[in-house]
């Protein structure tokens, strides 16, 4: 199959998936036994005001009609207005999204670099010290709860040592110029280097906490995959050519071993973008995860739906990119 027709097919499939997510989220939020009007106006509001609000938000229509209204809006690019901020949901999301993207990207870079390196060394020096270290490190990464470890690290590096800040994207007294919303990128563009280094310091702990379990998964898959590849016949052929061990590993084994790892990296990255809720809460990170949690607490229906669809969209795009990368890495996939 041609790559372009493959991508087109996946794009069509993606639209179907997004609409599926949209309908499920819409229906689920509407049938839970909670009343957004009560949440907005408070429990003691007069019935007339409640009815007026209900009508204004369209909540007095049957669910099916509400869904059609919503789908019609989405097709026109209108995700509705937040019940809390009264702004367009898109505006809200675009404000919170960059912080999440920044954290997710820095976490995945951390996880990929450390995870593949540990996995590679672990496989090449099997049953030696580095292997044992990497395996213990991985087990801890998968089993330690991130929110607990996050609090411990804040206690240690902020409270005891005072080396790193406890939360936020940058210090409160700074007011960086917003260009793209990605603080690191903006500070480089505008040359505000104090903001840049301040933001880096704020990124260290959340990156570690968010990326740790991904690092562990990547290291484990990398190790298993590498051990498998090192026993393949073509590695023996490469050695029979008289290539030095380093070349055999880096040129022949690594690329083959990376094929399954790319899948995991894609899934983990999708997870980082969408699943940073706890980390964002602990580190007061102004990201999408926190936006959705707050929306849930205030029963902000349009915000919940909009945020969820955005995450589903990101997840689908990441998966598509992974599949394309897959084909680039493995010629057998292009057949």
């Amino acid at each position, binding site marked *: 199959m041609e790559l372009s027709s493959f991508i087109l097919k996946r794009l069509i499939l993606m639209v179907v998936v997004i609409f599926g997510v949209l309908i499920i989220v819409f229906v689920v939020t509407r049938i839970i036994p909670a009343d957004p009007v009560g949440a907005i106006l408070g429990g003691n509001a007069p019935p007339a005001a409640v009815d007026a609000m209900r009508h204004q938000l369209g909540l007095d229509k049957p669910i099916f009609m509400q869904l059609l209204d919503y789908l019609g809006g989405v097709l026109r690019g209108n995700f509705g207005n937040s019940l809390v901020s009264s702004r367009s949901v898109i505006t809200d999301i675009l404000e919170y999204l960059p912080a999440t993207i920044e954290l997710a990207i820095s976490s995945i870079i951390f996880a990929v670099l450390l995870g593949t390196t540990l996995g590679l060394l672990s496989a090449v020096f099997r049953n030696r010290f580095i292997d044992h270290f990497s395996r213990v490190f991985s087990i801890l990464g998968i089993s330690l709860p991130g929110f607990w470890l996050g609090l411990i690290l804040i206690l240690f590096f902020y409270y005891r040592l005072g080396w790193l800040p406890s939360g936020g994207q940058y210090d409160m007294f700074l007011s960086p110029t917003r260009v793209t919303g990605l603080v690191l990128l903006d500070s480089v563009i505008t040359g505000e280097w104090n903001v840049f280094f301040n933001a880096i310091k704020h990124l260290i702990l959340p990156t570690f906490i968010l990326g740790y379990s991904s690092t562990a998964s990547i290291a484990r898959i990398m190790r298993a995959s590498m051990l498998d590849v090192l026993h*393949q*016949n*073509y590695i*023996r*052929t*490469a*050695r*029979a*050519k*008289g*290539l*030095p*061990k380093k070349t055999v590993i880096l040129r*022949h084994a690594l*690329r*083959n071993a990376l094929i399954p790892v790319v899948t995991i990296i894609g899934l983990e990255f999708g997870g980082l973008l969408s699943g940073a809720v706890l980390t964002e809460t602990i580190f007061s990170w102004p990201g999408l995860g926190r936006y959705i949690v707050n929306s849930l607490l205030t029963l902000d229906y349009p915000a919940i739906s909009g945020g969820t669809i955005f995450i589903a969209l990101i997840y689908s795009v990441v998966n598509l990119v992974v599949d394309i990368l897959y084909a680039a*890495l*493995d*010629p*057998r996939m292009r*057949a």
Partner: protein
Amino acid sequence: MEQQRGDLLDISGLRVVFNTYAGQVKALNGVELWMNHGERLGVVGETGCGKSVTALSVMRLIEEPGEITSGALWFEGRNLAQLSENDLNSIRGKDIAMIFQEPVAALNPVMKVGAQIVENIECQRRSADAGQIPDKRAFSEIMRDMLGRVGLDWQRTENLYPHELSGGMAQRVMIAMALSSKPKLLIADEPTSALDVTIQAQILNLLNKLVRETQTAVLLITHAMGVAAQFCDFIAVMYAGNVVEYGSVQSIFRNPLHPYTKGLLNAVPKIGRTDELQSIPGIVPDLIDPPSGCRFHPRCPYRKPDCDTLEPTLRAAKTEPAADRHHVACFLYQNDA
């Protein structure tokens, strides 16, 4: 250093073990083999007798949990068993090249086959003329020439990936790769076993033609007596980690001495043969706990009292001309011992 029996390769007393959870597998139990430049030696035996382990030992490609515990691998006066990885890498692929049983699996699935051949040429040249700037275009020329010589159209082949090749084409690519560095010794480990019968003949004919042109010595590992007889000058018969009989093809076929060799030849069907096909009774021994003495004694119809306590060594059969190099490891022929 003792006198090398063959001026190219002389394996003496080679022992290899594999340390597994079930116990130590004594895969090679003092293998003796030798050959001169340009000769073709066939190593035959059943699955698990140590043929492939012997071949991999020569390349020093035995991997954990396997290890060479003793013995010498003389190659042109150097003991490969004692060389460092660096020194070995200057011999691997350059002086000794190897082709394998599963040609498609032996090629890297994510590299174009042309590039894999070029890599071999480049690797050999780099150690030969160190310091000079490698001439990639010249390497490509050699690669294309080699593809042509193994009967492949380079324009159609060089940019293919291994999964796009048939088994026969892949083995041709492997042969092109192995011979691209003009090795002195080509080790062919069951090169045709995984291929269709018609392709087997093509590959053997091709190999025959190419090594005759270049006077390359061949160590052919096979389980097919017929293939060895057709292709080789000498044959070594292996059983359970030992070479039990060694000699020219004529001497082995006309006058097989070892009871195992006799059994093997009786098990080969021939046209016009009307008697029942003979098999060797018993099964191949477990090499974790091999039989004491001669490893063949539990299956041997000519067993003598000492066969289960003493290990026979490979000795010259005295009645034949020296040129036949006929040797056998059996007490039936060593009454004087």
